[in-house]
Structure formats: C-alpha cells, structure tokens
C-alpha cells in the first residue's frame, strides 16, 4: 500500500534500471514460448508438467534478470512476491478442483429419484435408490444439535462475559478452549462410551446430535462471547439507569444488539457440523432404511451415506457418493455463504 506511494515519488529510485510490469510480462511470454518449443522437440510432455516447468523457468529467468539489472535485494524481493502469489494459487487450485469435480461427477446421478428414495430392497448392482433417508437423518440430527448447542452455548457465553468471576470462569474458558481442539472422532467415541454402550441406549439420531453438540458448543460460545463483548457499555448503562435489572438488560438490550453476530456464529457452527462424518459412524451408525424417529435405532446421514457407499467400492456406489457429496457441499456452502453475507450486512449497517 505505502510501497506504491513511495514508488510514485519521482527521483526516489533510478527508474530506468527497474524491471517494470511490461518487461516482466514480456519475460513471461518468452518463457512460455521457449517452453512450448522445448516440449515440442524434447521428450518433455504433459499439461501439468508444462505448467510446473513454466513456473520454475519463469522464477529462474525473472530472478536472474532482476539480479543483473536491479541487484540482489530486488531480485529476492521479486522472488518472494512470486512466491506469495503462487501460494495463493496453491490454495485456490485445490478448492476449484474439489468443487468443480464434485459438481461434474455429482450431477450425473442427482435427480428427483435420488432425492426421494432410500437404499432398501436393492441388489448390489442396482443403479436406482437414493439418499432420502440420509437427508432426513442429517436434518433431524443437525436440528437437534442446534437446538441443544445454541441455547446452551449462549448461556455459557453470558456466564463468561456477564456473571463469571474468579477461578470458575477461567476454568470454563479453559474447557471451551480444550473442546475447540477435540478431534471429532473423540467426541463420537465419548458419546459411544457414555450413551450408546455406557447407558445401553444403542445407536440413535439423538446420540449423533449429542456428539455434534460437543463440536458445536465451543464455536457458539466463542463467537457469542466476542459479539457480546462488542456491545457498547453505554447501552447497558442506559438500561440500568432506566431501572432495568441485569437479567432484563441482558435479554432485552445486550442480546438483541449482538443478535446478528451471534446468528452468524451459530450458522457457521451448524455448517461445520453438517459435514461431520466420524462422530456419526459411532453414534447413529449406517442404515439403508429410512428412520424418521431420531430417538431410537440406527439412522443414516449424508456424510455417513457417502462414507459407506465409498466402502462398497463399485462404480454405482461411487456415483451415489458423488451425488450425495454434491448435495452435502451445496447444503454446507449455502449455510456458510449466508452466514458470511449476514456478517457483511451487519458490519455495513454498523458503519
């Protein structure tokens, strides 16, 4: 930012000995041309190889030219600049690849039939059947987890910011920190050890919801805590001055003011757990049948549906897995993007 200002000051640097953008573009074009030639006449081949070759060659060529023209300092500077741009590319390429390949593979099987049928009564080679039972399971489990984790997380956040004193609040904060780092499979193992075999309740959608709650809770607490802290002190003071007791101040003044941020945090937490697979394997298990009762019996979910289909390993199973992956990604991204848009609107209105 400030670099551009400095570069604009005339006479600050020796302008003629700089590697300007047009020159660098020309260098890139030259590198591509020479590489094309090399790939045509030598045993080098392959599209991916070509891209890698061009990138490496350009890095060498630009650094060498810059070294000769501008000196060592600027040569290294240009190398770092190229490096951070490539780093960004290294993140965007997999993202685009995962999303586009899933769409490409997923649309083949994703139709009304797939969305409205389950997997009962099918032979291993049948190509019909669908993920209806898994969609029902995911919706029920995530809704239950949200219904438990959001109010509980909000109460914990209020406790931490408004009521907590002394070692107890530090302990609660510490535990929330620890919970943030719990691997999802461990959350599943706990509910399995505690609920499924400990209390002999067996597999159920509710058990799955419990394990998802453990994963959601720290996210909800953290984001709500941040948002509650952002509420200006003047609002509280005004409320106290009007004679409202503390609990009413929190319910009527603090929470409504922070509500947009809290909602965003909750939606991000929901988006995160919707795609969780590992804990569900241990708590709601896998079933081909539709089970609308979340309180008892095995229940399918979209992530475990994908996992079990991959495990079966036939082309038809892969097709089903891709189609289900597409619905799962769509579901998660809709949640994620609407949460982000909500924050955006929120910050805009604050300005």
């Amino acid at each position, binding site marked *: 930012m400030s670099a551009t200002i400095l570069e604009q000051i005339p006479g600050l640097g020796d302008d003629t000995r700089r590697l300007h953008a047009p020159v660098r573009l020309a260098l890139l074009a030259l590198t591509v041309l020479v590489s094309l030639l090399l790939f045509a006449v030598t045993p080098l081949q392959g599209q991916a190889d070509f891209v890698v070759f061009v990138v490496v060659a350009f890095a060498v060529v630009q650094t060498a030219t810059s070294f000769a023209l501008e000196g060592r300092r600027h040569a290294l500077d240009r190398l770092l600049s190229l490096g951070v741009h490539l780093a*960004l590319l290294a993140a965007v390429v997999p*993202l685009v690849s995962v999303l586009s390949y899933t769409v490409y593979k997923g649309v083949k099987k994703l139709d009304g039939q797939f969305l409205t049928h389950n997997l009962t009564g099918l032979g291993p080679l049948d190509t019909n059947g669908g993920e209806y039972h898994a969609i029902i399971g995911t919706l029920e489990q995530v809704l239950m987890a949200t219904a438990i984790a959001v109010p509980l997380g909000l109460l914990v956040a209020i406790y931490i910011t408004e009521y907590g004193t002394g070692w107890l609040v530090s302990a609660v904060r510490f535990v929330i920190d620890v919970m943030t780092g719990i691997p999802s499979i461990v959350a599943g*193992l706990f509910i399995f050890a505690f609920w499924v075999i400990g209390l002999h309740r067996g597999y159920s959608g509710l058990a799955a919801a419990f394990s998802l709650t453990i994963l959601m809770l720290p996210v909800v607490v953290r984001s709500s805590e941040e948002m509650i802290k952002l509420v200006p002190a003047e609002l509280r003071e005004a409320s106290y001055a009007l004679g409202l007791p503390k609990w009413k101040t929190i319910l009527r003044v603090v929470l409504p003011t922070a509500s947009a941020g809290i909602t965003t945090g909750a939606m991000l937490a929901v988006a995160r757990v919707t795609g969780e697979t590992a804990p569900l394997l241990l708590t709601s298990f896998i079933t081909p049948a539709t089970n609308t009762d979340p309180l008892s019996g095995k229940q399918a979910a979209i992530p475990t549906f994908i996992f079990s289909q991959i495990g079966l390993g036939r082309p038809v199973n892969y097709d089903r897995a891709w189609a289900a992956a597409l619905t799962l990604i769509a579901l998660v991204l809709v949640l994620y993007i609407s949460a982000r848009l909500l924050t955006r609107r929120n910050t805009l209105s604050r300005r």
Partner: protein
Amino acid sequence: MTSTTEAPSGLSGGLGPRRRVGDRVFTALTTGAGLLVLALIVAIGVFLLTKAIPAVRKDSTSFFTTKLWQPDNTPPVFGIAALVFGTLLSSVIALVVAGPIAIGIALYISDYAPRRLAAPIGYLVDLLAAVPSVVYGLWGLLFLAPHSDKFQQFLSDHLGFIPLFDLGKNGVVGRSVLIASLVLAIMILPIVAAISREIFLQVPAANREAALALGATKLEMIRLAVLPYSRSGVVGALMLGLGRALGETIAVALVLSLAPTTSFHIIDANIGGNTIAANIASQYQAAEPLGQRALIASGLVLFVITFAVNGLARYVVSRSSRRGIA
C-alpha cells in the same frame, strides 16, 4: 471491556423482590450452563478411561509398544506404537507442505493484495475449511490419488535415494501416505492461513512504514518489521494446524487402506502407515466388544496428544497477542 459494567446491585435490589428473583434465576441458569460444560469435559475423560482401561488390561502385549492392531484375536494383540507413528508422520508432512503455503497466503492478504480484494480472498481461502472432510476423502481417493502416479513415480525416480521417497521394488500405488498427507495439508491450510493473517494484520502500520521509509524492499520490510513481531503467533498457528491434522479422521481413512506400520517410505503404499483416527473409523464397524474398547483406548491417546499440542499452541498464541497489545 464492557463486561466490567456491573448492574448497581443496590438499585435493582431496592426495587422489589420480584426482580431479584429474576436475577437469581438467570444467574443460576448461566452458572449452571458453565458448570455443565465443566462436568462434560470431566465426563469425557472419565468415560473414555473407564472403557479403555479394562481393554488395555486384557491386551496380551504392551499397549504402548506393540505395532499390531488385532484386538479381537485370541489372545488379543494390539498397541498404538505404529498408529501414533503414522499419525505424527502424516500430520508433520501435512504441516511441512501447508505451513509455507499458508504463511504465503497470509502475507499475500496482509501485504500484497489490493486492499479491495484482500477480504474476499480471505473468504475464498476460508471456503476450503467449509468443504466437509468426507468430500476431501472422496476427492483424494478418486481424483488426486489416480492423477498422482506420475508425480510419485517422479519423486521415486529422482529423489529415491532419500528414504522418504524410496519405493524399493514396489510399483506406485496412488493411495500412499504422501497423498493422504497432501489432502491433510489442503484441509489445514485455511486455519493456519487465517490465524497467521490476523497476526500479520496486527503489526502496526508504523513498523511497516518505518522500514519502507528507510528504503527497504517489501521482502526486507517483511523480514525486519513483520516477522519478528509475529514469529511466535505464527508458530502457534502452525501448531493449531498440526492439532487439526492429528485428529482428522475420514479423509485419511478413505485415502489410506493400510495396516499400521512404522515405515518412513511415504510413497510406498504397499507398506503403509495408518493414523489413530483413521484406524478407529475403518476398524470400528467390524470390531467385537473388546475391539471397540481397544479403539476407545486409542482415541484417548489421540485426545491426550491433541490436547497437549493445542494447549501449547494456545499458550504461544496468547503470549504473542498479549505482547501485540503492549
């Protein structure tokens, strides 16, 4: 800051008993929620222990040094040595790959991106974290692994003298530890990038401007003004990424289908390696009661490892952000 504003207790107390009841109920409710969280974490530890200890007692060999995982054999033989090794190996490779890239992305957003693009690009990178791990597993298994044969062959041909890339007489099989680690690297990129970015943005503009005013290039500015200021924060971010990689289950379980071993040959899918978390996911369905409890014991070990790594990471990050405010 605002949380220090206390309700004047004399006032609300003086306005009648009904309001005090409301306050008391609300205090009890929120304190109860706080205590519930404490109870939950204790319960997690206790229940995992009570299921794990009897299983470990029934192990005919030493739980911590055995490399095999056959808890349902008679006599039961299982240990976490190879699983811990595989977990650490794949996570460390993932971190070595993802670390520099994530720091590069963070630098791009904090120092290189046009100001208007910085936030959208941040969201874009965050989107990587929104993709479910089972989808990464599916993509790793059916897209990345089949398309990586040439790359792995290249590594083995040209860098095979390094034990890591030694294939021996075996042919390339796509689903190697290296591919699983690359998938892990993609999955931990967003968290490391996001935290590093926040830390780089905390560096006061005055530091950057001072370096530039002295005629520093951007590289020198970053080395002199940005990195010294944020070093421990970035270390913390890397360790949080490591913690995430250690616990990742499904993506690894889908890409790998191997027996636990302690081998450094990361592209040789015939000898393999497996992680604690992935082992739980893949063994669990077929496990007998003892096998299930043995898996719980391995999960407890994973919990302890991630707890230690995350705890250390948070300590480092909090120390650096405290210094950042000062």
